[in-house]
């Protein structure tokens, strides 16, 4: 069956129908949301089994949508997006499962509605191959997350959620101008225009250098804010600190990836000259993000803020890997996106679980938790080690490949890979410093009386964490099968980005 991608868009929408009928019954609403997201996850795994290792787009569906504008409903996946979709559905399922355990106490039905709508947007972003469709899904993620932070968030939630929305919208509306510019530039002699990515890749010879310079800026701003790259990251700590735990999991795990994915999917293939023009800036900002994010994390007093800033550093590795424009770096970046999704999602989960029990988030107020919570300590410890890049766990693979790619970087800036590689490597060391120091202060030390009677992980919490733990180990020990999926598609993107005359016949 070839409609599996559309099925992924439809299932969460279909889940809204029973949710509407059970709007007075919170228990039923929770069950509906859990079932829907679980089915969605299963279907995304099924989608994975239908995928064959090769470069082009697969499982493509095309439907006339706005014929008067030449816009169609076009979806498909390739090696870059094929893992991001199951990652999204898994994290959404875990977020919904965890939320239903009592973390969310008010307006359950509205909350679950927001999550299902959010899932439509998130899955859609990774499968859309028409820029118009992509933009719609990109923005569709915005309103539910705005509500999730603003209604179910912490004390400063309104400031945080407005900041999140305004930052994101500023970027994406400029991207809309960029999209329309691409649309107009794609016109041929007969005046027919298109926004379909495969067609645009073939037509990109029509984009002159100065056009690419500006339009890449418009797209890049949107992705850089979403990612976020320095100096557009200031919304992230606020949003994460105020968001409910499940919101943080999805925000860090999936929404940030939309930025990195956008660069790989649209930025690199469509605007090779634009990429070249902006390359020095992008490399510098990536390395700055790695070092700055790590340094700032080290001095955080708030546990959740520490994890939030560590995201900035980790996403710095993603952009660095993308913009060194070689295969190792690119594969590393995609793996780093997956790893960050699982590991940072898990870290936010555990910070949330910890907060639910102790009602404290300041590192100074915590300590000695390891004595009462053996299970919690084991899980949390593994994720912390994965996050700092311990070999054998997944974080290492991505960062190692990115560093490898960086050392091999011979791009436009005056300073080559031998300058940027060691600098980025310092970031890995810093990550070990701030994460281990945090772990030591939070978990070890004398037991505090107030925490003595608090229970260890519940069964629900273990159920939420276990899949992430398994993936962390599997991706760390046997990354090769995953790399084999990613590599051909990524190779194509890198070639499109580095050779402006390289064209491929997309998927026919």
């Amino acid at each position, binding site marked *: 069956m070839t409609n599996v991608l559309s099925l992924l868009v439809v299932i969460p929408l279909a889940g809204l129908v029973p949710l509407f009928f059970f709007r007075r019954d919170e228990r039923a609403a929770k069950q509906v949301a859990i079932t829907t997201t679980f089915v969605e996850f299963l279907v995304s795994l099924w989608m994975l089994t239908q995928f064959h290792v090769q470069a082009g787009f697969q499982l493509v569906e095309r439907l006339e949508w706005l014929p008067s504008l030449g816009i169609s409903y076009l979806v498909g996946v390739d090696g870059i997006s094929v893992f991001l979709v199951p990652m999204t559905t898994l994290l959404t399922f875990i977020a919904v499962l965890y939320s239903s355990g009592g973390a969310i106490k008010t307006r359950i039905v509205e909350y679950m509605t927001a999550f299902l709508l959010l899932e439509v947007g998130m899955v859609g972003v990774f499968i859309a191959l028409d820029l118009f469709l992509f933009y719609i899904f990109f923005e569709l993620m915005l309103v539910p997350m705005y509500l999730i932070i603003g209604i179910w968030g912490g004390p400063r939630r309104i400031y945080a959620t407005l900041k999140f929305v305004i930052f994101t919208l500023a970027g994406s509306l400029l991207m809309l*101008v960029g999209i329309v510019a691409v649309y107009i530039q794609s016109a041929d002699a007969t005046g027919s225009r298109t926004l379909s990515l495969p067609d645009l890749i073939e037509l990109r010879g029509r984009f002159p250098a100065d056009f690419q310079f500006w339009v890449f800026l418009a797209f890049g701003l949107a992705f850089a804010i979403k990612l976020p790259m320095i100096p557009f990251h200031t919304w992230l700590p606020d949003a994460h600190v105020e968001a409910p735990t499940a919101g943080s999991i999805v925000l860090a795990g999936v929404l940030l990836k939309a930025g990195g994915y956008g660069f790989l999917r649209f930025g690199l293939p469509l605007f090779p000259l634009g990429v070249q023009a902006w390359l020095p800036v992008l490399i510098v900002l990536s390395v700055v993000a790695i070092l700055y994010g790590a340094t700032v994390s080290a001095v955080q007093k708030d546990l959740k803020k520490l994890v939030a800033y560590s995201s900035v550093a980790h996403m710095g590795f993603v952009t660095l890997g993308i913009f060194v424009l070689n295969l190792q770096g690119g594969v590393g970046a995609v793996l780093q996106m997956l790893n960050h999704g699982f590991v940072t999602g898990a870290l936010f989960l555990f910070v949330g679980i910890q907060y639910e029990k102790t009602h404290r988030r300041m590192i100074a107020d915590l300590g000695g938790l390891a004595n009462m919570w053996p299970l919690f300590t084991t899980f949390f410890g593994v994720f912390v080690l994965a996050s700092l890049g311990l070999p054998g766990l997944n974080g290492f693979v991505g960062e190692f490949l990115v560093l490898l790619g960086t050392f091999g970087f011979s791009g436009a800036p005056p300073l080559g890979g031998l300058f940027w590689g060691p600098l980025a490597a310092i970031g890995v060391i810093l990550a070990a410093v701030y994460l281990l120091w945090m772990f030591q202060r939070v978990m070890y030390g004398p037991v505090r009386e107030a925490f003595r009677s608090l229970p260890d992980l519940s069964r629900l919490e273990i159920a939420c964490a276990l899949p992430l733990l398994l993936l962390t180990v599997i991706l760390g020990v046997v990354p090769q099968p995953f790399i084999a999926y990613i590599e051909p598609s990524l190779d194509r993107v890198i070639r499109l980005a580095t050779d402006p005359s390289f064209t491929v016949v997309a998927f026919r």
Partner: protein
Amino acid sequence: MTAADLVAVYPEIIVTAVAMIALVVDALLDRRRAALALPIITIAGLVVALASVFNFVPAGAYFRGFVTIDAFTSFFRAVFIVLAIFAAAVSPAYLARRGVPAGEYYAIICFSTVGAMTIALSSDLITLFVGLETMTIPIYVLAGIQRTDRFANEAAIKYFLLGAFSSALLLYGLAWLYGVTKATDFATIANVLAAQGIANGPTIVALALITVGLGFKAAIVPFHQWTPDAYDGAPTPATAFMSVGPKAAAFAAILRVLVGALGPLGVDWSAVLAILAAVTMTGGNIVALAQTNTKRMLAYSSIAHTGYILAAVAAAKAGPSAGAAVLFYVFAYGVMNLGAFACLLYFDLEGTRGASLDELNGFGRRQPLGALAFAIFLVSLTGIPPTIGFVAKFVVIQPVLDAGLAWLAVVIALNAVLAAFYYLRVVVHMYMYEAEEKVPRIVSGRSLSVSLGIASFAVVLLGIVPNSIYQWALEAAQPLVR
């Protein structure tokens, strides 16, 4: 005048008849029955009129060239009637609560709609001006229909004085135009101007006066000063109607005159319009940011939307896609803005006041479906998909870039961010604050809820499948291209 002429203006005749019937019914029935019967009669009559729009009338000139029927006419007729139906449907509960004379109210809306429709079918300066006045004069009355309310009176008198002033300016400009071209019908004017080639002094005076006159009607900055007070002071259902009907009609006039008749003019007025558009959207948005009263905030935001529409007018040289963008945006704006104002009817407030932001606190819990509709309209006004407001932004940016006005497209995008801040602040108050003691009582009429439900559903649906409307707008814009 022949029978064919009369057939051609069937929709206008029906709407006029509806207005008359409303007045007669109001006189015959007692107050309680009239309040029940009038909205039903009005809406049913308007639905018949809407159906008659789609009834085939051969395109062409009627009434010896004073009237033209084409796709453009049909599109605007349909838009005006849909807006009138919407306005009539949201009003009954408010009218009954405030003791506003219902017969006059519905008749005024119908009369004003006839005027707007007349603008759409005009092919002559005289028809255009008659239509414009027929549309505006009832609105002056509508603004002051709550006679005992001081603010309503202030709104009406301000609107009337500035409206009369702008009509005079416009008429003066039309006179200059007649002096230059010795014709009043658009086709001849266009031909004479095309033959004349380079614009000379008197033509530019005419053009400037007409732009200013129509600018007043459409509330283009710096000719917008009357808007906030008039919108704020008028009874809320009247505001809902006058913020969309007359504005749509003003743009019908702008398209007919500036793009149709004066299109061939050598002088590049698109630069002027582009600057006016940028100033209008930015000015409207910045002042709207500072408002704490939702009704006034929406009034200023409607100025900002004028700017977006004007941007598409400025891009006229991009061809039919520019005209189509104006038509599409006017329709989208009409539905979502009327809906947003109408959502304020849920609040039982004194006088004509709109709800302050604090009074919206907890609305999401007190009236879930009403708040949902309001949120959808606001998201659409912001331009976030999947709503019709987003598609409207998309189709406006397209001709603007096509005409080489990249800076204006960027200004539109940045303005949309500004607008997002104050639109979403309303959502914050509805959903993220709890109701305090001093929030106003919620009143809901069934017709209000039903019509808002239909409209908000349409806003989302047409945001997902906008093709048929855009296709129609594209066809309707064809007659403007020569």
